[in-house]
């Protein structure tokens, strides 16, 4: 029976092979439409690699793996931290500064590929983190002052607990979190970042009463990012993760074409909901498989 209220492309089975093929295809090439992600390619790579990790389908040849690892290391800036892609690498060092969100996704990608981290410039990385904290405690994306709201989650992810962002200032009248102190409306993504960051700083913390109330209120079936907005599959992860402690890939909405960002976050959300036995368990605070998180923690302890 056809339900007239149901969008046409909706599917109810989990097409594991189609998803695997989708992410492998993205690793080989992204279409021209992805040009707007040119400066953040390592993040697109992380979405694909982490998805294949969750799908337990990351088998590659040793040559392929070491080639990818070398590409990621080529992004490490001599002064510490990673760039988003080789898009500005020239003989003039000043043209390609490191970038905070890219540093986070580069590190996780190396961990997924189980690459030893001996080449990691730890003191440079800590210097970068310090230089990116604004006077009000919020985190900016790079030393040029270009703000990337999501970056707030990054700091503690790297196991740097020396910074203590006053996240309470980002809490809005609704009981959830906005992108910057004073900004007037909370949002699912920024709330995830704040809850994950607080949770990593203080291992006993989870979403507080008011925040939990706001987060569960976002579910309409799937999740929306703000009250009275449409559902978007990526918020199944952002909201779902903050609460818990015919093509491959997923689109933003039932009839959209897939992209790595929404595809990966949809898989991550499915892993969190434990509804797919075929997926590895996810660590919601790090946004990477539990196995990869464990490996990374051990590896960081080894090289420190």
């Amino acid at each position: 029976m056809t339900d007239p209220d149901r969008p046409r492309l909706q599917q109810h089975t989990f097409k594991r092979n189609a998803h695997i093929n989708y992410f492998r295809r993205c690793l080989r090439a992204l279409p021209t439409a992805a040009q707007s992600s040119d400066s953040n390619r390592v993040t697109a790579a992380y979405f694909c690699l982490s998805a294949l990790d969750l799908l337990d389908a990351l088998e590659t040849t040793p040559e392929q793996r070491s080639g990818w690892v070398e590409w990621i290391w080529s992004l490490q800036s001599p002064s510490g931290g990673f760039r988003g892609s080789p898009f500005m690498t020239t003989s003039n060092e000043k043209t390609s500064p490191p970038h905070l969100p890219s540093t986070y996704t580069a590190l996780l990608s190396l961990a997924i590929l189980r690459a030893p981290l001996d080449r990691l410039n730890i003191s440079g990385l800590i210097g970068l983190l310090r230089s990116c904290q604004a006077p009000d405690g919020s985190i900016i994306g790079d030393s040029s002052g270009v703000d990337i709201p999501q970056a707030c989650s990054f700091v503690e992810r790297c196991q740097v607990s020396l910074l203590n962002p006053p996240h309470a200032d980002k809490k809005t009248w609704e009981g959830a979190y906005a992108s910057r102190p004073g900004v007037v409306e909370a949002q699912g993504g920024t709330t995830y970042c704040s809850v994950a960051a607080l949770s990593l700083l203080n291992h006993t913390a989870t979403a507080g009463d008011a925040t939990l109330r706001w987060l569960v209120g976002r579910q309409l079936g799937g999740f929306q990012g703000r009250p009275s907005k449409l559902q978007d599959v990526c918020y199944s992860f952002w909201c779902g993760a903050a609460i818990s402690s015919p093509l491959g890939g997923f689109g933003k909405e039932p009839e959209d074409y897939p992209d790595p960002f929404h595809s990966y976050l949809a898989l991550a959300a499915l892993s969190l909901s434990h509804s797919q036995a075929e997926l590895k368990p996810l660590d919601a605070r790090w946004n990477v498989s539990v196995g990869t998180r464990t490996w990374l923690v051990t590896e960081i302890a080894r090289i420190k």
Partner: protein
Amino acid sequence: MVEVGAYIPLGQRGVWSDVKPIAQDDGPNPIVPIMYSEEYRDAMDYFRAIAASGEKSERALELTETIIRLNPAHYTVWQYRMSTLLELKKDLEEELQLMNEFAVENLKSYQVWHHRLLLLTHISPQDPSSEIDYIHQALLPDPKNYHTWAYLHWLYSHFSTLGRVTDKQWKYEQRWCEEMLRVDGRNNSAWGWRWFLRVARPGAAASQADGVKEELNYTLEAIHLIPHNISAWNYLRGLLKHLKLPLTPLLPAILPYTARPSAQIPEVPSTFEFPLPSDPLPNDTPLPVPLALEYLGDSLIEQNQTIEAGEVFGELSMEYDRMRTGYWEFRRRECVEE
């Protein structure tokens, strides 16, 4: 002969003949390589070259415009453009005009708004009202755009700190916000803006007693207009929490939405001075309103009637808000196990 409309590489245009382009070095094993358009690849090759030499020039400005039209998220190019504008002492009003066009085409690009913020910081007008009017216009086609609202917040915060926002302007802004909420009472961004104007900003009205009353009235009337409006309920709860006021005194205005048998609803005390729902309620309001049941439950906890509160959460879990059944069960158990 050149085919009409075909792309002419920069190297074949006289103005770039002295520059040696720098190709991207993606190594032998790139991950997620992008199939760039010819125009983008070419422009980036020249951009790398001028960035490496530090050239700040008219042609550099043109090149950055070409690239951000192809990739408006290109933060490095935006930054280079800004420093070039300043170094060449360009007319920043003209740049603002260009940004008006960009804002319409790229409402969701964070960088477009950040560039605009830097421009306004440098231009620093004595009276920011024309910029405010422009932003009001920009919100019309996309009234929930997060970047635009964050920018409007920055405008008021920045220029009020400089002492350039008059009382008249604040009043005008409040009327504009009320108009936004009249057009769409469910616009959560506009509710957030009201919070800033009425509660959060220095000198806001809700810091005085009559301001508090006005604010509670406004919110209750919004609930009576759209009883299932989650933004209005959240605003009410946020207001009470912020002002450290109890929920219970407002119950007479809430209880009709809980669809309790009339025997369980006490008469409205004659001293009650807040707006009440219409009696009877409009036929098209599905009852009970789960948000009203939640309010009742929390009010019962406030009155130490936890058993009764648990029953209300139980109803939400089993019957009236099945989507969140786990959450309401969690709240019910909290009441019963205490």
